[in-house]
């Protein structure tokens, strides 16, 4: 990193911007998903675009409103939209409608090994591989988030009042248990080692359960809602948005209870809006409300480099290709950077 790039970020383009491709699409980027060495991006006008080998794909007209959620099933993209449709899209742009709920939104989608899941209102629709009709898992309130564990045997569904944990037995029957905590729970994720479950809440805090003994606690102190959070590859840290620093909670051993997080500061005191772990490293990409993106090593905060300078639009998506060669950054203003991570000589 050049010494002066922190001083006048508005004047300097980063080397990543200089060697990458920038797209000013003026359509809000809502989400992105890595599929192999491609990245599929969902937009606020219902379209999906696929980025690969430095190129942008044809526009795929998937939904008529907003692409609310994106996930993948093998090589296929899954999207849910505010047009009530749950779609499977191939990397070639072929669209298959899996379900249509009309004026009810498809809020969340996910999949595991051919089992497809979407949620609309308070119902999880689960299509087992090669089954035409979905299984319906009903909940008492609207679903805030949904996630499979790493083996696809458990499905966590966050909602008002806690999380419903669905478990599949060996005859493929699903049964549920409840993890209770008052308040409205939004996004939910398992740690990569499946030992913890974490939710973000309507309040500016996160909640977590240690699954072996169902003990739970919360992580608070945020200035804003925590909308983006993820575990690094080995679950040593949970990295989170919602503050002017990237807050990294230690999740090794018994978890973060009674321990302090590592706070990674950035110049300019902007809100961290998106965090994306660097694959196989204790490092994260951090996107800020002004559009800038940094890469930081969690345990060496001095090792921070700027990837993208600011655009004035909050970062809403960061995705890294599977081979770690390229990164895609998108923001609410429709500015996209698609660039290689390594210098030619570093490869």
């Amino acid at each position, binding site marked *: 990193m050049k010494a002066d790039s922190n001083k006048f970020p508005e004047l300097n383009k980063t080397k990543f911007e200089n060697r990458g491709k920038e797209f000013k699409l003026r359509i809000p980027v809502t989400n992105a998903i890595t599929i192999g060495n491609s990245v599929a991006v969902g937009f*606020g006008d219902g379209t999906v675009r696929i980025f690969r080998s430095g190129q942008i794909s044809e526009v795929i007209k998937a939904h*008529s409103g*907003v692409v*609310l959620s994106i996930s993948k099933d093998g090589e296929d993209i899954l999207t849910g939209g505010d047009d009530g449709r749950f779609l499977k899209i191939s990397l070639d742009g072929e669209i298959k409608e899996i379900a249509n709920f*009309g004026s009810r939104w498809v809020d969340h989608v996910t999949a595991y090994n051919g089992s497809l899941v979407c949620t609309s209102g308070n119902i999880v629709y689960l299509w087992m591989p090669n089954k035409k009709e979905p299984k319906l898992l009903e909940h008492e309130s609207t679903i805030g988030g949904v996630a499979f564990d790493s083996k696809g045997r458990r499905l966590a569904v966050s909602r008002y009042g806690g999380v419903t944990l669905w478990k599949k037995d060996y005859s493929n029957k699903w049964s549920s248990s409840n993890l209770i905590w008052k308040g409205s729970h939004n996004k939910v994720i398992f740690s990569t080692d499946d030992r913890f479950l974490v939710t973000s809440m*309507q309040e500016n805090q996160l909640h977590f359960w240690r699954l072996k003994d169902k003990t739970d606690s919360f992580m608070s102190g945020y200035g*804003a*809602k925590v909308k983006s959070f993820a575990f690094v590859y080995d679950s040593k840290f949970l990295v989170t948005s919602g503050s002017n620093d990237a807050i990294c909670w230690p999740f090794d051993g018994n978890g973060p209870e009674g321990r302090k997080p590592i706070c990674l500061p950035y110049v300019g005191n902007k809100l961290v809006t998106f965090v994306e772990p660097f694959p196989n490293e204790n490092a994260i990409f951090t996107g800020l409300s002004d559009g800038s993106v940094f890469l930081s090593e969690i345990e060496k905060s001095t090792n921070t480099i700027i990837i993208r300078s600011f655009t*004035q639009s909050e970062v809403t998506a960061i995705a890294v290709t599977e081979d770690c060669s390229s990164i895609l950054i998108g923001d609410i203003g429709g500015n996209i950077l698609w660039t290689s991570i390594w210098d030619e000589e570093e490869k």
Partner: protein
Amino acid sequence: MGETNKQVPVTVLTGFLGAGKTTLLNRILTEQHGKKYAVIVNEFGEQGIDNDLVVDADEEVFEMNNGCICCTVRGDLIRILSGLMKRADKLDAIIVETTGLADPAPVAQTFFVDQDVADRTKLDAIVTVADAVHLSTQLSDHHEAEEQIAFADVVLLNKIDLVDESGLEVVKERIKKINPFAKIIHTTKCGVSLSEILNLDAFNLKRILDTEPDFLTSDHDHEHDDDVTSLSFVSDTPLDMEKFQDWFSKLLQTKGQDILRTKGILDFTGENDRYVFQGVHMLMDASPMGKWPEGKERSSRLVFIGRNLESMNLKEGFENCKSA
């Protein structure tokens, strides 16, 4: 991207089943006005609205886990408003229909409590559609009907062609007794210019000053058997800021559930600015609003709409705030 920071106005449309909400919504969606409106309807609403920009919602009232009873919000609204704000095409307004039996407070509170909602949208006005024929009975039978009138910035008194003049007067009196500050518009088949119900900016503190002449006049008589009532107070003696804050915050903390809406313009000793505030239950929005106009009498005026106001010693409390 300056436009992404613009707050989209949200109109809350309340009213009992059959009052004419659907007629109004259909007009909003089909009239050629060159504007883009999204309409959030509820599951139990009347049928017959079909449009790309109609969103189905379940009315989900959430308590925040901070223990404050008045911090109940509409969870579905937070979700849907956040989703609508991601749209590529910008909306001119959003209309939220509530069921006839819904308490309007959580809807209004959502705009105070949720930061994302407050950043991107703003509560514009609460519009209540009332059936001129049936309102009196509904007010007697359902406290929700009273609340919908109490919270209203505008009451569309619909179906006036089906009542005679004296009947109309009775209904209007009834509305005014509950909420003397709502603007009453007479309609048949909800025939009203959309500019009279959308983009009113009724929750803007500045607007409270604009509408000053109509509101905050004097004590209104009320009958004790009425459930929701209003009381207002005027003082030409400046108030002591500390005393007022002390009294008022305690009042809202302890009686905030019974106090549905408050509005006021205050003259504090030693302050050159007018202080304007408004509240929904315990939640308050207050700010100095520039200097008092030259040559105009300074005075403090305060209004409460709610239940059991008689028991709160409001007059005494207000009097005690006067500077000695």
